[in-house]
């Protein structure tokens, strides 16, 4: 039972389902919903590395998502650049802006950092909303091209788009898996546990925090760029605070600081909100209490809860084995002393 819930198996299972999903359904709408969920997952993974593994909760994530989306859109529609060149440039632009914001915002810590990045996120939104001549303001941008062909690969059908996004998601998961399981990942976790302690064991905390902040914005930008070319029109609302909190909700429900958390949380919330669409905004009356209960009883979300539970079981098993061994050895010694006596 416990092995089913192992993070690695959970991720492998998800990948398998994701790969065959388009064969299970002919419903384009479902494929659309799944593709969108995958795009969000990429953004959630970015936030997870920063907030979950390094302990810095950035609330500017939607801002960087929007920067990625707008960079791609402007470069393709206004500058009429080659799609994939624009795609790469969009990621670079987002990362460079992430570096600049990180340099300043990482001078703060904890809730100050959260508040500071919240403001940064809102400023990004305002700039997009008000800079009419560049971003089209409230009207947004339309006519964003879908991904250009790569050799024989074309991306004009929903299924092709689905697989393209899935490819980027799998790449994201692979990169995250490797980072978390490397010395670099251990360094991030050390910073989360105690920055002072990390520094005394020789870790340059600023460099590492900056690195993780840039990685996080890079993946927000990647998700944004994919979103823009998938939906093909964007407005300033994709950079709004609500989007940040949606991403954060996916992360918290799935499990902050766990590798499978972003998948679990996003899938569950996206599907549940699809099912509850007839309730419109009253859905929040269901989500609110559930989220509150989850944070109180399972602060590490669904994945974290399952992980803790399996670790506890393992620990209990080991203790039982220890106890049995002690009993056996005690019996042996008493038998030996009986013999001697």
């Amino acid at each position, binding site marked *: 039972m416990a092995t089913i819930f192992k993070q690695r198996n959970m991720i492998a299972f998800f990948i398998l389902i994701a790969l065959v999903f388009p064969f299970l359904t002919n419903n384009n709408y479902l494929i659309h919903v799944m593709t969108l969920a995958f795009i969000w997952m990429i953004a959630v993974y970015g936030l997870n590395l920063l907030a979950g593994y390094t302990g810095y909760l950035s609330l500017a994530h939607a801002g960087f998502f929007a920067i990625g989306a707008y960079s791609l859109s402007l470069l393709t529609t206004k500058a009429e650049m080659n799609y994939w060149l624009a795609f790469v440039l969009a990621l670079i632009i987002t990362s460079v802006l992430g570096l600049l914001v990180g340099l300043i915002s990482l001078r703060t810590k904890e809730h100050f950092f959260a508040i500071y990045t919240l403001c940064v996120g809102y400023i990004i939104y305002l700039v997009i909303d008000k800079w009419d001549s560049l971003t089209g303001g409230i009207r947004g941008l339309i006519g964003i091209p879908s991904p250009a062909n790569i050799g024989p690969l074309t991306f004009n059908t929903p299924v092709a788009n689905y697989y393209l996004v899935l490819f980027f998601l799998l790449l994201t998961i692979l*990169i995250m898996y*490797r*980072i978390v399981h*490397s*010395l*670099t*990942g*251990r*360094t991030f*976790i*050390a910073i*989360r*546990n*105690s920055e*002072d*302690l*990390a*520094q*005394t*064991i*020789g*870790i*340059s*905390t600023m460099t590492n925090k900056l*690195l993780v902040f840039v*990685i996080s914005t890079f993946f927000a930008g990647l998700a944004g760029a994919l979103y823009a070319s998938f939906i093909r029109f964007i407005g300033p609302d994709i950079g709004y605070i609500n989007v940040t909190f949606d991403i954060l909700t996916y992360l918290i429900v799935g499990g902050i600081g766990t590798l499978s958390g972003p998948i679990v949380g996003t899938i569950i919330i996206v599907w549940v909100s699809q099912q509850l669409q007839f309730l419109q905004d009253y859905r929040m009356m269901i989500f609110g209490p559930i989220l509150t209960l989850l944070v109180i009883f399972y602060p*590490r979300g669904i994945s974290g809860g399952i*992980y*803790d539970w399996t*670790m506890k079981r393992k*620990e209990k098993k080991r203790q039982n084995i220890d106890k049995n061994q002690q009993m056996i050895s005690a019996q042996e010694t008493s038998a030996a002393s009986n013999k001697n006596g």
Partner: protein
Amino acid sequence: MFLETKNLTKKFGGLTAVNNVDFAIEQGKINAIIGPNGAGKSTFFNLISGFHPPSSGQIIFKGQDITNLPSNKIAELGVARTFQTTNLFDQATVLDNVIVGHRLRTKSNLFDAILRTKRLKREEQQCREKAIEVLDFVGLTDVSHKLAGGLSQEEKKRVAFALGLATNPEIIFLDEPAAGVNPDETEGLAELMVKMVESGVTVCLIEHKMSMIMKLADRIMVLNYGEKIAEGTPTEIKNNDAVIKAYLGGSAIA
């Protein structure tokens, strides 16, 4: 001198936490800093390990001025320290918690991580071996696969030592290593400190447990209101009038 401070002063606004302290640490000895609460002992540690920049004065380690170095650079030079409380990652095993201690001696970066290069694999192995070695040194081999959250106070102290030792230090500063542990366990930690010195790591500690200090330390410095009021061997300190007055109170010099 191995490590010395010259006229070291730290002012927090109007408060002088450390005032003109000259202190020298000899290599291969157990050095202790004692003093009443609020005497500036922890601030003194924070100055040496680079957490606070001193207001004035100098810190010299093996002939090199380290006064204005950041704490991670100081750690790289071979100066380790522990805190009064150690924040471990409770959901990971003890071994996993200690592996990162050797990180500063490795070079692999983000790209090594993403590409899983040979260098990363080699350095990971190196860090793991180091962690196993230091956990064995501090006597925690048996619990190395337990979750850090389930450790006793004394075991946590030992993990803190292990983390410090994993950085390959030449000198380790221990901030109240025996606080909150029972007398038997204190004895065990004292033995461990002797073992550390024997293995070639110089020890400098802050401690309140006098019986332990008097038995253990080779040299003692006494701080009071940020100033050094005495320095010497345990016997000298025991009989020093200024020290007795600082601890027991008393009127002006009779």
